[in-house]
């Protein structure tokens, strides 16, 4: 695997993600943050939460951008380059990890700084959030490659809804802490997300490795269907 190729491609993916984000940041600042500041409702919980919500958009947007790349022909151009599937997948991974880094740093520093969590706990939360963001990003990219148009967007929406659902459900476990904090409970709760993350990453990276170097807009690579009007 050529490191310079991976870095060059990952820079491209990051640039295409970050460039339009200033509009989202500005809009959120005007619509959400300013009213909170002027109403005096801004507290440490909200500050950390709103900023984390903004920062998680970075890796997620990187995955959603693939839809635009399909439309403007970028994916087809990237597939025409002398770049292997592994290099494509590695570049997506590097981009996702880099774009998740602000979220990790934010949670690891602000949670202890605002006294919301001890440093060790904040570190674990930050790293877990980073891994989850990378995983969602890679799965999003893979789904966009794997499925066409609306189907890919539906799958990605289901994935995001499921992630939010898991976070919400985890809050319901507060009363179960005595059970969870047994050795068996801790091991189970650690292994299940880890296994899920590994399986999801394996699926995502494998799909990108296979599909990125052969992508063509006029074919559904998975079913082998062809758009007849485009010729063979």
């Amino acid at each position: 695997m050529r490191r310079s190729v991976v870095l060059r491609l990952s820079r491209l993916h990051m640039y295409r993600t970050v460039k339009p984000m200033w509009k989202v940041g500005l809009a959120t600042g005007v619509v959400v943050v300013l009213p909170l500041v002027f109403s005096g409702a801004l507290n440490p919980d909200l500050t950390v939460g709103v900023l984390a919500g903004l920062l998680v958009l970075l890796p997620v947007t990187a995955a959603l951008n693939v839809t635009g790349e399909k439309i403007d022909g970028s994916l087809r151009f990237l597939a025409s380059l002398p770049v292997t599937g592994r290099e494509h997948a590695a570049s997506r991974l590097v981009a996702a990890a880099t774009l998740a880094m602000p979220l990790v740093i934010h949670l690891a520093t602000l949670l202890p700084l605002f006294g919301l969590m001890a440093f060790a706990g904040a570190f674990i939360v930050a790293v877990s959030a980073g891994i989850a963001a990378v995983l969602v990003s890679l799965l999003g990219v893979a789904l966009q490659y794997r499925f066409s148009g609306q189907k890919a967007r539906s799958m990605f929406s289901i994935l995001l809804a499921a992630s939010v659902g898991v976070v919400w459900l985890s809050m319901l476990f507060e009363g179960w802490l005595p059970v969870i904090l047994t050795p068996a409970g801790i091991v189970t709760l650690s292994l299940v997300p880890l296994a899920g993350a590994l399986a999801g990453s394996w699926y995502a990276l494998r799909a990108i490795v296979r599909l990125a170097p052969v992508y063509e807009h006029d074919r559904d690579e998975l079913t082998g269907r062809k758009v007849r009007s485009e010729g063979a």
Partner: protein
Amino acid sequence: MIEARRAETGDDRCVVDLRGVEFRYPKFRLGPLSLQIRPGAAVALVGPNGAGKTTLLGILSGHRVISAGRFWILGIERDRVDPTIREQVAIVPTELLGLRWMRVGEHFDFLSHFYSGWDMAKAREMADALDLHLADRLRELSRGQSLKVSFCTALAQGAKLLLFDEPTAGLDPVARHDALQLIRSYTRQFPDVAIVLATHILEDLDEIPFTRLLVLREGKALSPSGDGPLVSSDAGIRETAKRMLLGAAGR
């Protein structure tokens, strides 16, 4: 024994060596095809829409995995999707492949990071000769200018095989004439580069000195396989292709 061993290796003198190659979709099958292309050859790949021309170009450019048969490019067997082929093989599709927000100069610079033999001086020199402006954005280019950019990149990457996919489709008569002149001058300027030009416009065949003709219809080759001369001496290449296509259609 010796013959058997020979049959297992590609012909080193050929840029492309296809032997009994097939490619299957659920409702479409290309081949079996056998074809040898030597350096400097100019192959006309002719057939109606849906004949399998683009699929064959996809195989030659390393985008498609063959379902059966054997396939060598530049003496190396390719039995899986192999993007490294694209160092030596350039494809000029109907629409320019590039990031449309980039300028022509940025496009060259971007590509230079992916091709080990990239020659930036050649790319700029060719762009200048073809009256291309490096500051123009790709999305602002006409079809004819896009074709010129593809030429520059093919030259700069040092391609040994140049694949054209319907280069004149949708062009007005003047742009079509210019495009074919450009291809003709390229074949003269770089006699060692083999070209394969896929088209369903038979008039295109008169403009370029093709050395070989491959006619496809519904995935099957109508013209003989191999590496011998395929253009009959008494009829022009266009007439030969027309007769084959009409004959296959029962007219």
